[in-house]
């Protein structure tokens, strides 16, 4: 029970842990299960080749820029496919009716020539595109039912340890009390106990010193509590709102290793990191219209869920998936801003990420692990200043700093200057 309440109280801190462990478990369950079941090397190699060469324009089961490739080997003659894939323009130029028809159907978009692919390679790709994977959901369903997080053993050990300490304390107290009673009875033998004792509250009220100290104590405890309460006003550490589109930083930045500044490109040049505009999303999601990655069934994040979120981008940006074209009907996404600095604070992302070379994670936390983004840092002035006091300035190769660094380090007698020594604690550097 104790363990449970601990989890509930600190759920915000613990839930990433739980999540992490759950996903780990699911991973460990999925990954050994080979998607293709048997050792079909051809399919494996075909998949690799498909991802390298074809995936930008083709899907296996759906139309994209080019046609769906599933069943292509049945629809077309294999020799024709070889020559088409190696140099489609030549085939079209030769006036081949199938080729010309295909060319016309897909808006005359020219397919890249792949002269480097051998017949075997193409066979492998076709083997992959023809392959229909077995449903692997059963294994996952089993995984979903296991709810107990792996870390609970740790809590149990801790709990047992705590109980042991408590028991020890109780035993000690018992012995001490026994000893005291014994001493008291020896003393009491000399005195006649007063039969008319005041009730304890009355005695307390009569003792002015006690009353005074209690009031003082209560006052200071109250003050301390009030201070604690006041100090957390306006601090939104852990703020984790539900966004209009369930965007998972974990999938993008964690699983797929996309650099933060690929999407948040303004962070390189501007004070704002910038919420990416939807055309940035479409750079990739024009082709990635389905989610095929790992799922978190415990939280309800299955493939369909993620795919639906991708559809939300299409709705917002006005992308007609069937016809592969923009409709022009847009619906800007109203994201909920998580990191809010007061108006009187000036913060510059470019200064921190480009000039100082600080990782985004230093302030934003393990974003690559966040399924739902939350505010990691308190964003208080104390937090800013602490970092400015401790961080050294990395001046390597920045000509702006060279002269001033030389002079200042001589003045302070240090090799490495902190931000504070450079003037990073001055009020108007951030407040104007």
């Amino acid at each position, binding site marked *: 029970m104790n363990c449970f309440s601990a989890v509930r109280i600190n759920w915000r801190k613990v839930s990433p842990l739980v999540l992490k462990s759950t996903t780990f478990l699911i991973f460990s369950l999925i990954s050994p299960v080979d998607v293709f079941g048997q050792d079909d090397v051809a399919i494996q190699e075909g998949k690799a080749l498909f991802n390298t060469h074809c995936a930008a324009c083709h899907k296996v089961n759906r139309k994209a820029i080019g046609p769906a490739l599933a069943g292509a080997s049945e629809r077309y003659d294999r020799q024709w496919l070889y020559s088409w894939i190696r140099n489609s323009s030549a085939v079209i130029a030769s006036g081949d009716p199938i080729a010309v028809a295909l060319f016309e159907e897909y808006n005359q978009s020219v397919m890249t020539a792949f002269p480097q692919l051998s017949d075997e390679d193409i066979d492998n790709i076709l083997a992959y595109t023809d392959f229909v994977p077995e449903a692997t959901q059963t294994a996952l369903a089993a995984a979903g039912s296991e709810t107990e997080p792996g870390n609970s053993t740790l809590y149990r050990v801790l709990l047992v340890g705590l109980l042991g300490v408590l028991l020890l304390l109780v035993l000690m107290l018992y012995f001490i009390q026994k000893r005291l009673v014994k001493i008291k009875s020896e003393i009491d033998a000399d005195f006649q106990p007063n039969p008319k004792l005041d009730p304890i509250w009355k005695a307390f009220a009569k003792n002015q010193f006690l009353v005074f100290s209690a009031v003082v104590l209560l006052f200071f405890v109250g003050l301390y509590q009030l201070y604690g309460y006041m100090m957390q006003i306006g601090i939104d550490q852990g703020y984790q709102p539900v966004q209009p589109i369930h965007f998972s930083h974990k999938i993008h930045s964690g699983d797929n290793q996309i650099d933060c500044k690929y999407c948040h490109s*303004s962070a390189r040049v501007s004070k704002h990191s910038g*919420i990416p505009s939807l055309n940035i999303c479409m750079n990739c999601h024009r082709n990635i219209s389905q989610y095929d990655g790992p799922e978190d069934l415990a939280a309800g994040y299955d493939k369909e869920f993620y795919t639906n979120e991708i559809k939300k981008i299409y709705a917002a940006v*006005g992308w007609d998936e069937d016809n592969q074209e923009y409709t022009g009907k847009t619906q800007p996404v109203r994201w*909920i801003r998580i990191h809010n600095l007061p108006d009187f604070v*000036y913060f510059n992302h470019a200064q921190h990420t480009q000039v100082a070379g600080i990782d985004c994670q230093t302030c934003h936390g393990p974003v690559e692990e966040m399924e739902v983004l939350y505010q990691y840092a308190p964003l208080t002035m104390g937090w800013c200043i602490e970092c400015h006091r401790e961080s050294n300035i990395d001046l390597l190769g920045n000509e702006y700093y060279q002269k001033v660094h030389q002079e200042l380090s001589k003045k302070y007698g240090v090799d490495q200057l902190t931000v504070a020594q450079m003037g990073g604690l001055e*009020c108007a550097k951030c407040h*104007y």
Partner: protein
Amino acid sequence: MSKEKIYWKSIHQLDGTNPELSELSNREFADKLPTDLYDNHISDNQEDQFSSRRDFLKYLGFSTAAAALVACDGPVIKSVPYVVKPEQITPGNANYYATTFFDGYDYSSILVKTREGRPIKIEPNTDAPDFYQANARVHASILSLYDTQRLQVPKANSRDISWEDLYDQTKGKLNELSQNNQKVVLLTNSLISPSTQDIISKLILKYPNIEHIQYDSIPHHWVLDAFEGLYGQRAMPNYDFSKAQVIVSIDADFLGDWQLGGYGSGYAKSRVPNQTGQKANMSYHVHLESNLSLTGSNADKRVALQPAQIKKVLAHIYQNICLGMDSKDDQIQSIVSHIIDRIKSNPNRSVVVSGIESSEAQSMILSINQSLQSQAFLPNEPLYFKKGKANPIEYIVEGISQGEIKGLIWNGVNPVYSSPIGDALGGQIQNLDFSLALTTVYDETSKLAQLVAPTSHYLEAWNDYNPKPGYYSIAQPTIKPLFYTKDFQQILLDLAEVDSNHLDYIKNYWETNILDGSDWNKALHDGFFIKEDSNLSDFEFPQLQPIERASLLSAEDAPMSLILYPKISLGDGQQAGNPWLQEMPDPITRVSWDNYLTVSISDAKKMDLVNTTNSHGAIDGSRVLIQVQNQEIEIPVFIQPGQAPGTVGLALGYGRRVGLKKEMHVGQNAFKLLLNNERTQSVTINPIIGKMHEFACIQLQSTVMGRGEIIKETTLEEFNTKEKEYYNPVVHVSKNHLEVSVRSDEVDAWRSFDHSTGHLFNLSIDLNSCTGCGACVIACQTENNVPVVGKREVRRSRDMHWLRIDRYYSSNDTIQEDQKKAEETTWFGQAYSTFRDLEKAAENPEVVFQPVMCQHCNHAPCETVCPVAATVHGRQGQNQMAYNRCVGTRYCANNCPYKVRRFNWFRYNKNKEFDFHMNSPLGRMVLNPDVVVRSRGVMEKCSFCMQRTQKTIMDAKLEGRQIRDGEFNTACAQACTTGALVFGDVNDENSKVAKLKKSKRKYYMIESVGTKPNVMYQLKVRNKDKNES
């Protein structure tokens, strides 16, 4: 029997039987407290209608609790990114676009700073070779883009209609009138756009009954006629004052609005003592006028004369220089011979200019300058800014009344307001078959139109200009039209049924007629284009003919002459709805939110007119009724030192009412007195007894009272012959009864800051080249989100300008005399009388302008008294003010010797009590997102444009390089049209400001206090002989 004395406050008190009074005297407040505010239900019982104090507390408690509960939930802030982000826009970074400002009254090549697609500031386009000096009105024009009073949709008889409807109705009417061959007049301001002229000719081709008339609210046709008569081209002569050594300006306020102004930068170049060889050299400037103008204030010798006298002086100078005759007029003999002596000392480096409204006078000016072969006179580069002929409105009114003109289309003009016969025109417009107003705001004239087409603001529109031969500029939109508006030219194109949009039309026009194969994109990027013009090289001076002089020589002065003038802030009143300009103090009088009759000290005495100061430091003025022929205006009086006796002045551009927020309904319309379109009128003045007008004047002290530590000045002779210690001594203070220099460490109570590393920002202000134009004031207001507080608050000295331009008069004829007198004062009683004398400005005083902002003291008195350390010193020399830390004790303001700190008495944004631009979401779009909008109860002041210096440093860091001189700039120094303000890093030895710091003219204001400021002044040198004052 002695009777007790009775003291009474009002004569009504003497009447003991008045029951109201006896009751009033028993009550503390005249009205009952409005306790029933909270009680909505009406009870039969009279007593129940008032809620008790207990109720009040209940409501109070409930609302506090409710507010507290609501406050528990933080606000959810939404962030909406672009769907498709434009490539050039990076949120957080500014973009700049080159464009051009022209409204028929001001012209300037400018850069527009935009943030996230919205224009927020006007900056000079210093790449342009000419016309890049933007004055205060141009700087403020950005706010008119976000004017809530702007017209948003087309209207027909005050009802909203669609553009299609408007076009249908207009075309129908135009066709009908064209078929009947009935005249339609297209009335515009002076147009200098070549492509617009072309579009208008297309329109006239389509409707041959249209006649195009150009109209200037303040006429310039005299100078156009004169120039045309001599040089055959209808234009205004151009001058380059930087090449002049002797400048004679005869009623020509060329630092103000004379010939569109913009001569300040050239003038200032010749006014800074230029050390070449042994002796420093600067130009000599003599100025004749009746009102005290900006130009008169800057002159070395200013002569206040009545208008007819001025005309005579010009005629005599002309006689002497061009005809070789001596003058024989006793009254003006000395000034004429003085001017002629000066001119003859250096004839081809002399220039004479005049604003006298007669083509003879203007012809004389051309003849004089041509005979002098003046290098400053550029008739081969004339200015095309003004096109208007004489009396266009009279022509239209007559045409309508005689039934010749049946239709009127107008754009960019407001003649019902700005013409003396505007009322007659207003009446006639209603008799027209067809009237169409093309306008951005509803004004006096467009209110009367049947059809109103909203035109785009200049920051939303395309345009092109040709201000002088070979110089072309482009105006490009910096934002999509905010409302359903179209370019003026687009409307004409649509009416002429030319199937083209305005941009394509301009582009085509330029490619065929102007560019000569050059790149359009480059011209657009630069904002201007220079083309070889045959006019420049082939110019030949014609033979001069004698000019008829009798009209000038025989001019007689009226007993009292009224001289109408445009104010620096409002000009001709086109931007009367702009709160920045309304609140900008006039450089001379320091009065904002008003126009007034300027009266000389002696005339005021004669007529018993007074200016009084009331207990909270505001100025009140007598009111008068002035009459010019049959026009009457009731106007307050402002007593103006330097006003020529027998003359009074009145500013144009005020008194507009239609299309203005209520707060801007100030002043009286002086255009009604511009009879025969002449600025000089004979006037009678009748004082109104008892009524005093309340001014919003921000400077009460009008003289420095000989305090040489505030203003230092010397003469060119002393500057050249004496040591620096003589004319610019360092202040000495007493230590152990010994005199020690205040700059010595011995007398310093402070531990000094080490400023040797990094940047140290300094600002140098040259009193010689500062003309007081006030562009910096508005630039600062724009850059730093300085609020507008309104007339009532300015009157209480609660103006918020971070940068003010103090104007000081001398109480003797010169400030130096004042100083001597003050220094010679030895004992207390004498000091009392001396200083009382020094307080009063002289009849014709010398004037100094001194821009004052936070001096960024290295030993700042404000910092030591702040109980919460909200204002602290930075290593870069900036005195930093942390608003979020400030608790509003105002100790700092009390301890500041320069009085540059401003306190937010109210929340000036989102507050309906201050219904200026910050009270509407539209108006707030002008705010600079890099500067916080201060809240109530917080002290604020100049930050040395911290956001700009930090941005410059940031750019250098990102590019990994050192900062070049000139990169650091404050808004004021950037806006300075004359280069008087120079900002930079003094730790960079090669920087301009570091050199100025070593200048002989450098001094610090009130240096004896030991504040060690980072703002330095360059003392004023006047070019005058010992024997003349």
